[in-house]
């Protein structure tokens, strides 16, 4: 069966995992990765961290080098855009009209940035941050003593603020909600990050929405909805992402907050799988459907998808986890905290730079945010798989070993 062809659309982290996983599972026919960006799949998280700060370059962040793809006979079409999928004829139609036949198709299309319609958003020096090219263009506007306004106090906004501070910029973060990280953490953790950023010289402004952007060719100011005017040489908007579902939707595949897939990463057409940020899928640990924006999900779901395409049905069941590096803070997050009814803080969250916040729901541990606490993260990761109900008093007692407290 060497005449088959698996096409992977989207040159993402999921694609860089799916292709070699196909080989591991015995796929001996053609594999082609089609990517709209003109570069091999790369690690996206460093874009707002070490790549922006200049500590890492493109070679450092490629997931695999060029030789890996050639050695494993994985074709890449980079800088090429798939326009549509004709499921009846089983072809992918490219932007230039070329048609490429497939036997199996994998969608690893990732996500797009959420955009806002604002006066002045098209001025020079105003950016969203999602792709390598965005950061390369942002660099032209970075400079010691220059002023940056970050719109959005989520992880991308805060990481970007930290990287720009390191580069010597004056940074203001505008958050429309009452606190930063409001959708993803407890108030205590939001207060912690606000304190740290202020200690590092960032101006954090909450409850304040952007109104318009002013400039003459390039940006020079931002006006908030309350009338406040902030000088700005650089504006970066980080207000979330949306799943890239256009190809799937136009091809008639089921889409609902992402491309709907079953536990084997199959879309409503079983010759087509999907993996990563673009999927809406069931998570058995949390017993609900999820769309996740994470490397973990891209990697783990891509493995499941590859196995499926090779006829091995292995259900997807993985614990979501995330990380965020800002200044000297290493935040590691295990699990999903949404729906928590109790937060237990271990360590001094008010004056130190090391603590763990444990999220409980009806007594059961559902997530942890661990800052410079790798042990709490690692041990929690395992405990979370077991729906464990820890003793809250012991959990908060920093003199006890976490290994002993979270022993299921």
């Amino acid at each position, binding site marked *: 069966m060497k005449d088959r062809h698996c096409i992977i659309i989207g040159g993402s982290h999921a694609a860089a995992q799916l292709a*070699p996983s196909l080989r*591991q599972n015995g796929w001996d026919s053609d594999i082609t990765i089609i990517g709209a960006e003109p570069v091999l799949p790369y*690690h996206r*998280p*460093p874009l707002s961290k070490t790549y922006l700060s200049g500590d890492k370059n493109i070679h*450092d*962040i490629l*997931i*695999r*080098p060029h*030789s*890996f793809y050639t*050695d*494993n006979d994985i074709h890449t079409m980079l800088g090429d855009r798939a326009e549509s999928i004709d499921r009846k004829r089983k072809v992918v139609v490219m932007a230039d009209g070329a048609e490429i036949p497939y036997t199996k198709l994998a969608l690893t299309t990732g996500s797009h940035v959420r955009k806002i319609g604002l006066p002045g958003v098209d001025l020079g020096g105003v950016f969203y941050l999602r792709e390598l090219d965005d950061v390369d263009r942002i660099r032209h506007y970075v400079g010691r003593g220059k002023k940056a306004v970050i719109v959005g106090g989520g992880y991308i906004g805060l990481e970007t603020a930290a990287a720009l501070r390191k580069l010597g910029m004056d940074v203001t973060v505008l958050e429309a909600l009452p606190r930063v990280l409001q959708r993803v953490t407890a108030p205590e953790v939001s207060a912690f990050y606000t304190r740290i950023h202020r200690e590092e010289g960032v101006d954090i402004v909450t409850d304040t929405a952007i109104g318009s952007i002013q400039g003459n060719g390039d940006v020079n100011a931002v006006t908030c909805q309350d009338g406040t005017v902030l000088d700005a040489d650089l504006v970066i908007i980080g207000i979330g992402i949306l799943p890239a579902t256009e190809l799937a939707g136009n091809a008639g595949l089921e889409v609902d907050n992402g491309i709907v897939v079953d536990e084997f990463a199959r879309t409503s057409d079983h010759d087509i799988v999907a993996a990563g940020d673009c999927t809406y899928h069931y998570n058995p640990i949390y017993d609900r459907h999820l769309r996740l924006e994470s*490397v*973990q999900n891209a*990697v783990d779901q891509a493995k499941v998808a590859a196995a499926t395409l090779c006829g091995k049905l292995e259900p997807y069941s993985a614990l979501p*986890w995330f*990380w965020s*590096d800002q200044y000297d803070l*290493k935040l*590691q997050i295990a699990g999903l905290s949404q729906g928590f009814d109790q937060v237990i803080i271990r360590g001094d969250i008010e004056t130190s730079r090391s603590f763990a916040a444990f999220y409980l729901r009806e007594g059961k541990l559902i997530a942890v945010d661990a800052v*410079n*606490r*790798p*042990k709490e993260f*690692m*041990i929690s990761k395992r405990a979370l798989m077991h729906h464990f109900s820890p003793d809250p008093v012991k959990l908060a007692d920093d003199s006890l070993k976490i*290994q002993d407290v979270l022993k299921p």
Partner: protein
Amino acid sequence: MAQITFINADGSSKEVHVEAGTTVMQAAMDNGIDGIIAECGGACSCATCHVYVDESWLPKLEEPSSIEQDMIECVLEPEDNSRLSCQIVVSEDLDGLVVRVPESQY
């Protein structure tokens, strides 16, 4: 250039040649060593690039940072020679390095 030998959990092994300055984790990724997952890409955040370093090479490695040390203690089946391969930078001094890949990273 330095030669590194990866010994997989099933006993098979692979010798690879890598440039000085790269990490042992990246060498594994570049050469398809499947037992190294390296989700975080070398940020010392995930501990899915755990390896056992051949004892004779341990004295040639720099000491792990406190973050790495804490992570190592909590991996599956930690040993005295456990390291995160993303934190081992290859140099000419490590030419011939031998590392064992664990059965599982989770």
